[in-house]
C-alpha cells in the first residue's frame, strides 16, 4: 500500500472549504453576466445568444465534470498544469501553465480596467469628466494583490461575500422586472425577431457565449489549499456551474426582454442598462454595486489563480525556483503574487480590452481541448478502481467527445471574427514550446515531478 509521507516544509495552508471554491469559480466568471456575453447578441441576434448560452453551458458542464474528477485526485496548486504534468508530460504541462498565467493575468487586468472605468463614469455623471483612471487601475490590482499576499482564507472569503452580493443583485433585478406580472416590463414578443444572420450567426455567437462561464475551471487552482480537495472541488465546482447556468439564463431573459438586439449587441453594461430601464433608483444603485463587485471578485480570483500557476512552475523548476517560495507566516506564494503585479498593470494600461477578452477565450479553449484528451488518457492509465477518486464523472467518454467537438466549433467561430488573434496565439505558444524544450527543460528535476502516490500506470 502506498501512502503519503508527512512533509514538514513550509506548505500552502489548507483552510478552504466548498464555499471558497464556489466563490473562486463563480467570482471569476460572474462579471461575464454583467458585461461581455451580450456581444453574442451582436453576432447573431438575441435567440442566437440564448442558443450559445445553453450550448456553451453544455461545454462547461463537461469541463466542470472532467475537472472535478481529475482534480479530486491531483490535489495540487497549478490545477490543470499539475494534471497535464501527471497525465501527459512536461511540454504540455508547461504550455498549460503558460496560458493559465497569461489568461488569468490578462483577465485581471481587464477587470481592473473596467472597475476603474466604472468609477470614471460615475465621476463624469457627477460633473468631473476627465478623471484619470490609471491610479484606480493600480489601486484595484495592488489592494487585491495585498489581500492575496496576506492569506488565501481572507482573500477567498472576501471573494465569496462580494460574489454572493453580485449574484443576489441579478436575482433582485429579475424580481424587479416583474416577469410573472400582468404589468411586466418584458417585451419578448416584440423584441425577439428570429435569427438576423441565420445559423452562421449562431455559430459566430458561440465565441462570446463563452463569456457566460469562462473561468469556472479556475476552481482547480485551490486544490492544494482545500481542507479536503476530494470533497470541496467537486462540490464547489458543480454548485458554481449550476449558479452560472441560472445567472446566465436569467440575464439573457431580462436583457432580451427589455432591449432590442441591435442595442443589446453592443451595450457596455447590459444588466446595469436593464436596471436603468426599470426606472427604479434603488435597482440602478444595486446593479452598479453588483457590476463593481463582480469585476473585483473576478480580478481577485484571477490574482489567486495566476499566482498559483506561476508558483507551481517555479516549484517544479520549469521557471526559476525562487518563484516557488511560500511565505512562512501567511503561507501564500508571495513572490509569484508580487512578480505578477507590474505585469497586470502593464496589460491594463497597454492592451486593448477586446484583445484581452479574445486572448482569454482562446487560452481557455486550448486548455479545454487538451482536457478532452487528458481525461481519456487518465482513465486509460489509471482505470476506475486503481486509485480512489473523490468524484467520478458519468458516461465517459461521451463528455470528453462532446467537449472536443464543441471546442472545435468555437475555434471555428473565433476564426470567423478573430483569425489574426487565433494565429498569433498559436505561433506564440509554438515559439514558447521551442524555448522550453531547448533552454528550460534541462533545469527541471525530472524524477521529482511525479508526486502523486499512485500505483504504476497501466501498461508501464
Amino acid at each position, binding site marked *: 500500500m502506498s501512502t*503519503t509521507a508527512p512533509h514538514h*516544509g*513550509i506548505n*500552502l495552508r489548507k483552510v478552504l472549504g466548498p464555499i471558497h471554491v464556489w466563490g473562486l469559480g463563480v467570482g471569476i466568471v460572474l462579471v461575464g453576466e454583467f458585461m461581455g456575453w451580450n456581444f453574442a447578441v451582436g453576432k447573431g441576434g438575441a435567440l442566437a445568444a440564448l442558443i450559445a448560452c445553453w450550448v456553451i453551458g453544455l461545454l462547461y458542464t463537461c469541463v466542470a465534470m472532467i475537472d472535478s474528477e481529475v482534480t*479530486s485526485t491531483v490535489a495540487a496548486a497549478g490545477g490543470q498544469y499539475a494534471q497535464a504534468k501527471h497525465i501527459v508530460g512536461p511540454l504540455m504541462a508547461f504550455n498549460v501553465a503558460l496560458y493559465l498565467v497569461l489568461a488569468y493575468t490578462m483577465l485581471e487586468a481587464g477587470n481592473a480596467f473596467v472597475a476603474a472605468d466604472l468609477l470614471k463614469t460615475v465621476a463624469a455623471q457627477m460633473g468631473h469628466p476627465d478623471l*484619470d483612471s490609471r491610479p484606480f487601475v493600480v*489601486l484595484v490590482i495592488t489592494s487585491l494583490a495585498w489581500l492575496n499576499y496576506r492569506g488565501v482564507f481572507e482573500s477567498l472569503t472576501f471573494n465569496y461575500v462580494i460574489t454572493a452580493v453580485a449574484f443576489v443583485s441579478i436575482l433582485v433585478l429579475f424580481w424587479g422586472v416583474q416577469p410573472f406580472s400582468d404589468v411586466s416590463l418584458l417585451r419578448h414578443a416584440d423584441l425577439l425577431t428570429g435569427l438576423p444572420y441565420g445559423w452562421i450567426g449562431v455559430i459566430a455567437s458561440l465565441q462570446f457565449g463563452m463569456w457566460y462561464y469562462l473561468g469556472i475551471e479556475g476552481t482547480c487552482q485551490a486544490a492544494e489549499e482545500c481542507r479536503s480537495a476530494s470533497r470541496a472541488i467537486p462540490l464547489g465546482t458543480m454548485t458554481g456551474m449550476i449558479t452560472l447556468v441560472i445567472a446566465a439564463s436569467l440575464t439573457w431573459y431580462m436583457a432580451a426582454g427589455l432591449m432590442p438586439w441591435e442595442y443589446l449587441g453592443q451595450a457596455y453594461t447590459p444588466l446595469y442598462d436593464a436596471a436603468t430601464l426599470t426606472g427604479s433608483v434603488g435597482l440602478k444603485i444595486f446593479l452598479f454595486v453588483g457590476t463593481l463587485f463582480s469585476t473585483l471578485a473576478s480580478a481577485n480570483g484571477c490574482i489567486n489563480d495566476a499566482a498559483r500557476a506561476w508558483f507551481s512552475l517555479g516549484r517544479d523548476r520549469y521557471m526559476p525556483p525562487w518563484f516557488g517560495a*511560500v511565505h512562512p507566516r501567511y503561507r501564500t506564494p508571495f513572490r509569484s503574487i508580487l512578480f505578477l503585479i507590474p505585469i497586470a498593470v502593464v496589460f491594463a494600461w497597454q492592451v486593448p480590452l477586446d484583445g484581452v477578452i479574445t486572448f482569454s477565450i482562446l487560452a481557455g479553449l486550448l486548455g479545454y481541448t487538451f482536457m478532452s484528451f487528458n481525461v481519456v488518457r487518465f482513465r486509460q492509465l489509471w482505470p476506475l*478502481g486503481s486509485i480512489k477518486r473523490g468524484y467520478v464523472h458519468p458516461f465517459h467518454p461521451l463528455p470528453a467527445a462532446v467537449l472536443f467537438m464543441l471546442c472545435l466549433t468555437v475555434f471555428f467561430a473565433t476564426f470567423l471574427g478573430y483569425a489574426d488573434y487565433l494565429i498569433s496565439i498559436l505561433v506564440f505558444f509554438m515559439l514558447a514550446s521551442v524555448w522550453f524544450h531547448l533552454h528550460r527543460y534541462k533545469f527541471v528535476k525530472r524524477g521529482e515531478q511525479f508526486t502523486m*502516490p499512485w500505483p504504476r500506470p497501466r501498461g508501464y
Partner: protein
Amino acid sequence: MMDFWNVLEYAAWGISGGLMLWMLIDALRVGAEHDADALISSREGSDELLAFQEPTP
C-alpha cells in the same frame, strides 16, 4: 483648486504605493530572515483521500 475627485486620484496613488512598498519590504525581510531552501521547501498537496490508496492490482 483641487476638487474631491483630484484628491481621490492622489489618494489612490498613495494607497497603491503604500501597499506595494509594504509587500516589497516584507518580501525582502522574509528573504533575509529565512533560509532560501526552507522557503522553497513546499511539496505538492496531498489529500486525506490519497493517504489510503487501494493496493496495486
